């Protein structure tokens, strides 16, 4: 009996301790605008897995911003500290990570992960806990279809990315336009919509579709698909890719098949600097290949240039090796800092309301303004091209920084 009483008392004390701990933890929970000195910011990034190259670039972008903002006194006098968890490019893990960051690590703010595929579930977790969710790599409709009020994408809306190319082609005299196009597309929310939109416009402009198929991301070998495309001999290839190996495999296969399209553009991959050049076999093989994007290392903005210099000083390499992920991540930090400064709060609802207030923000990627869905309406799509080993902006024609386009693409 005595032992039972002791045990009951022990259990009661234990339960009280657990309850007290939970209350303390709940009070420290952050979306309420914690008053602790350091602002904790949580992000889940793909440091391993299929998106690891982009995930690590994002990590560097976030860390550069963290360093810079702290070097300038923090936000409203409070230093910031990043907590980054690895999601291994998994949609399940990204969900777990944000739950962990918010409920266990009690972060004050959250930053987005890499890719639309992971941003969509992550944004829902942030929304559930009342956190604003500024992100830099979730520009596909998959993210915006839910119409979450807490999502703000600083990057270019994916669907419109190929518009500058389409507009340029439509403006060309009919005799100079390609007459046929192939659309091999990796099955990913990032690629499908922009490819299908471009295909629709180009068909209307009289450019015949000679190949248009979606293939899985897990395809073991791109050779058969690339050979099929080459066999159709389209004058233009619009490759819906998400990484370097896909583009490099197609380039190698086209070279092997002695197939030379007049124009080749890939939705992602050619923007990866030196990694892309070495994968395709050097500057000559890359010559004329294009990619749509919002930003490139040569972007003539003083903050952007400072970030590029800082990146090179910290991580080595050359400015051309700094990919757009770094700028996207850095911009996430800039926009969030502006919102926290303006509202004086880290509370999700305050930040959401402020970011939806039609304000225009400055970022290393250029101006940012959000519409009701959280898309960046000020983002301007550019097309970049490899020209003799240099990655240059070519479209829109006449835009600041654009140089003449290399067309038709030189033969391999």
């Amino acid at each position: 009996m005595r032992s039972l009483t002791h045990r009951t008392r022990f259990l009661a004390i234990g339960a009280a301790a657990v309850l007290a701990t939970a209350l303390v933890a709940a009070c420290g929970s952050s979306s309420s605008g914690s008053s602790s000195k350091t602002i904790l910011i949580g992000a889940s990034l793909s440091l391993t897995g299929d998106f690891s190259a982009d995930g690590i670039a994002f990590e560097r972008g976030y860390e550069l911003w963290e360093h810079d903002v702290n070097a300038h006194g923090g936000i409203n006098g409070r230093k910031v500290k990043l907590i980054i968890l690895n999601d291994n490019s998994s949609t399940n893990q990204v969900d777990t990570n944000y739950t962990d960051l918010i409920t266990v690590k009690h972060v004050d703010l959250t930053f987005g992960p890499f890719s639309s595929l992971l941003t969509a579930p992550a944004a829902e977790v942030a929304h559930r806990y009342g956190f604003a969710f500024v992100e830099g790599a979730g520009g596909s409709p998959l993210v915006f279809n839910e119409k979450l009020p807490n999502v703000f994408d600083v990057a270019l809306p994916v669907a419109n990315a190929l518009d500058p190319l389409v507009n340029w082609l439509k403006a060309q005299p009919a005799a100079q336009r390609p007459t046929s196009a192939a659309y091999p597309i990796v099955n990913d929310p990032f690629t499908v919509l922009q490819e299908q939109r471009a295909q629709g416009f180009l068909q209307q402009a009289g450019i015949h579709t000679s190949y248009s198929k979606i293939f899985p991301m897990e395809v073991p070998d791109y050779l058969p698909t690339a050979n099929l495309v080459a066999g159709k001999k389209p004058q233009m290839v619009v490759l819906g890719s998400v990484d370097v190996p896909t583009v490099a495999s197609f380039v190698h296969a086209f070279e092997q098949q002695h197939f030379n399209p007049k124009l080749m553009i890939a939705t992602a991959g050619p923007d990866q600097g030196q990694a892309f050049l070495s994968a395709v076999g050097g500057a000559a093989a890359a010559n004329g290949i294009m990619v749509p994007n919002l930003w490139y290392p040569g972007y003539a903005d003083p903050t952007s240039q400072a970030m590029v210099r800082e990146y090179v000083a910290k991580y080595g390499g050359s400015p051309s090796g700094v990919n757009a992920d770094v700028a996207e991540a850095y911009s996430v930090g800039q926009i969030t800092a502006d919102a926290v400064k303006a509202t004086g709060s880290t509370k999700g609802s305050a930040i959401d309301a402020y970011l939806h207030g039609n304000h225009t923000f400055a970022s290393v990627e250029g101006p940012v303004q959000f519409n009701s869905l959280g898309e960046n309406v000020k983002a301007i799509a550019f097309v970049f091209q490899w020209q003799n080993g240099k990655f240059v902006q070519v479209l829109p024609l006449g835009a600041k920084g654009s140089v003449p386009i290399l067309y038709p693409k030189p033969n391999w």
Partner: protein
Amino acid sequence: MTSEISQAIAAGILGGGVYALMAAGLTLIFGVLDIINVAQGILVVLGAYLSYVLSVHLHLDLLLGLLITVPAMFVIGLVIYWLFIRPLRGAERTSMTLLACFAVALIIEGVLYREFGSNYVSLNAWYTSSSVHLFNFYLADIYLIGFGLAVVAIAAMYLILYRTKFGRAVRATMQNQAAARLIGIDVNRVAALTFGIGTAVTAIGGMVFGATSGGFTPNSGYDLISRLLAIVILAGMGSIGGALVAAVFMTTAEALVDVWQPNWSVAVFYLAIVIILTFRPAGLFGRRAVRAQ
């Protein structure tokens, strides 16, 4: 359409050579040691990185580099065996080796991340983007080389297994380890050498993988291992020649489906495996048949 199908078959057959090279070591190690080496994917990637280092830093041709990477991977295989596999004994050995191989994979992946980072690297040589015109097709040189290397490597493994005293010891160990010990075979030595040979062959697979994949990172092994296991299961665990047949079947089936509907290509291969294993549960060249050869 006929031309597309013919080209798909050609691409499939040549692509099968690449996968056979990567799977041969896996099936040999399973056949002799009853170890499902889940580190095979990362060993392929390690082989690719070794070729990368020799190519980029020593400017050594990829094929010549094999003279260094194959022995190097043999030694790595021996070290893995002695450190991680040999100490495991008892009834739980098979499941424990699975965990040990997984640990090996994580260690190698971690080291590769540390040394090379997460950016894609690739293997390039003049023959990685060139081709020959044969039978009205352009056939990629690197795939022809890969297929040739697969045939040579598998033939060499057959010669070792069926024409040498060591091979007899290996086959005796495959059939019955206890009986092999009783007739004086040093089973530990045979097992270590077999693990080394299986890993050494992977160096060739790694080089060809690196030259045909368009780029790889330390993470690339995960995409490989499920396919390599599927090939080995389809072939019949332990069948080295069967690995070539199964790999060619896999890549050809996928290439043919690609002509109509690429999104179905992977699913069709796995569906084919299910159907084949329903009628031949031991695979195309079942393990019992392999060990009886």
